[in-house]
């Protein structure tokens, strides 16, 4: 049972003079699946990027705590597993090399057994030495999950997790989501009905028309 918690207080984000969202508040401290939904342009991807520390909010604060200790922004990336349509792995490397190099950049030892287990689970083990550029878009989507899970993160953030996936792929992803939600906090940003059905709580974003 992890004791990870995420708290957002009065998050406000503007791009130039356009307000994306205003006054977002939530607190997640128990394992489970939390959804973020909203029409296109409502800032789902922006919000998950802010939670993951990839973007800074204009106002407000996101606090990540692990066992009551606050995580500093410089170290945050090692506690987060992130999947997003914008995520791209190095195409000139194979899946195995990608996982190896990226683990080393994280500063953790590359766990070969766990990598093997995950590759088998996502039905990619036989193709592990092929260059990523030869993969189909569904395979590219599945390898992103392996990349997001390899370092045992406490917080998982999936932005549109089932895009580009066929029914078999979806099944794999839903299995992983259900497995991980027993111990970890999961945040899913999606508009897909079946993705949101997994969530216990859903934050609904609206398109803001407010500018200043």
């Amino acid at each position, binding site marked *: 049972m992890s004791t990870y918690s995420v708290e957002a207080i009065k998050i406000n984000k503007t791009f*130039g*003079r356009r307000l994306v969202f205003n006054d977002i508040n939530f607190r997640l401290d128990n394992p489970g699946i939390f959804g973020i939904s909203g029409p296109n342009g409502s800032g789902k991807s922006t919000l998950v990027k802010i939670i993951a520390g990839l973007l800074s909010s204009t106002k407000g604060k996101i606090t990540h705590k692990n066992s009551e200790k606050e995580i500093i922004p410089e170290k945050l990336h090692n506690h987060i597993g992130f999947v997003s349509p914008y995520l791209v792995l190095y195409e000139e490397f194979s899946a195995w090399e990608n996982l190896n190099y990226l683990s080393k950049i994280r500063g953790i030892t590359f766990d070969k057994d766990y990598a093997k287990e995950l590759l088998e689970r996502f039905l990619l083990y036989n193709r592990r030495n092929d260059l990523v550029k030869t993969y189909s878009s569904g395979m590219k989507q599945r390898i992103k999950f392996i990349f997001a899970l390899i370092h045992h993160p406490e917080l998982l953030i999936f932005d549109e997790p089932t895009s580009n996936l066929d029914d078999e792929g979806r099944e794999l992803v839903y299995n992983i989501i259900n497995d991980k939600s027993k111990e970890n906090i999961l945040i899913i940003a999606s508009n897909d009905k079946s993705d949101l059905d997994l969530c216990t709580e859903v934050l609904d974003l609206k398109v803001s028309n407010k500018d200043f």
Partner: protein
Amino acid sequence: MIWKIILFLLISFVSIAGIAFPIVKNPQAWYEFPNIPGLEENAKIIFFHVPTAWLTLIAFLMSTVFSFKYLKNKNMDDDAKAYAAAQLGMVFCILATVTGAVWAKFAWGAFWSWDPRQTSIFALLLIYGALFALRSSIESEEKRATLSSVYSMIAFVTVPFFIFIMPRIMKGLHPGSADDTGAGPIVNFQMNSSMLFIFVLSLIGFTILYYWMWQVSYKSVIYRDKLNKNLIRG
């Protein structure tokens, strides 16, 4: 309104006085300027050339300060202020370069001779030019504001180097520089009180003019931006 009238009178007085007051060997009357050996009538450019060079630096400094503020608060108004200051800085930089070059043609015999100050103002011109090239190449306004702020802060820290290197690498011809044997440091003691008075008035007048232009300019940048987004109606 009253400020604009005062500014108008001030600039008019400085322009007329600077051009019309005679230069004589032994100034007696309050409106006579002393003769500075090596400069003679050319000395009068001080009332117009030095303020433009001064404002180039002030504008550059202000642009950097507002860039820093933008990075701190991410407020688009600060970016507009930095941008307006840089635009005016570019204008005054060109004016200072041109007036300097014209004066140099008569004083040194060539428009351009890579004197340390000429090289420094050329470097500033390059920095301003690069800043506008960067701004015009970025579509997203937030990115444009952030990247140009970062660039102007990087450019700012390189400026002090010019002050140290230039005199070592090239010989100074400019009045007031260390190598200048002809005129010497005119600002210090060769100007009489009336010349100094007009010079200071001209600095003050041009600085107020700059401040006013900057305010009009940054407000227009903000209004144009808001009009484009239909935030206010024209």
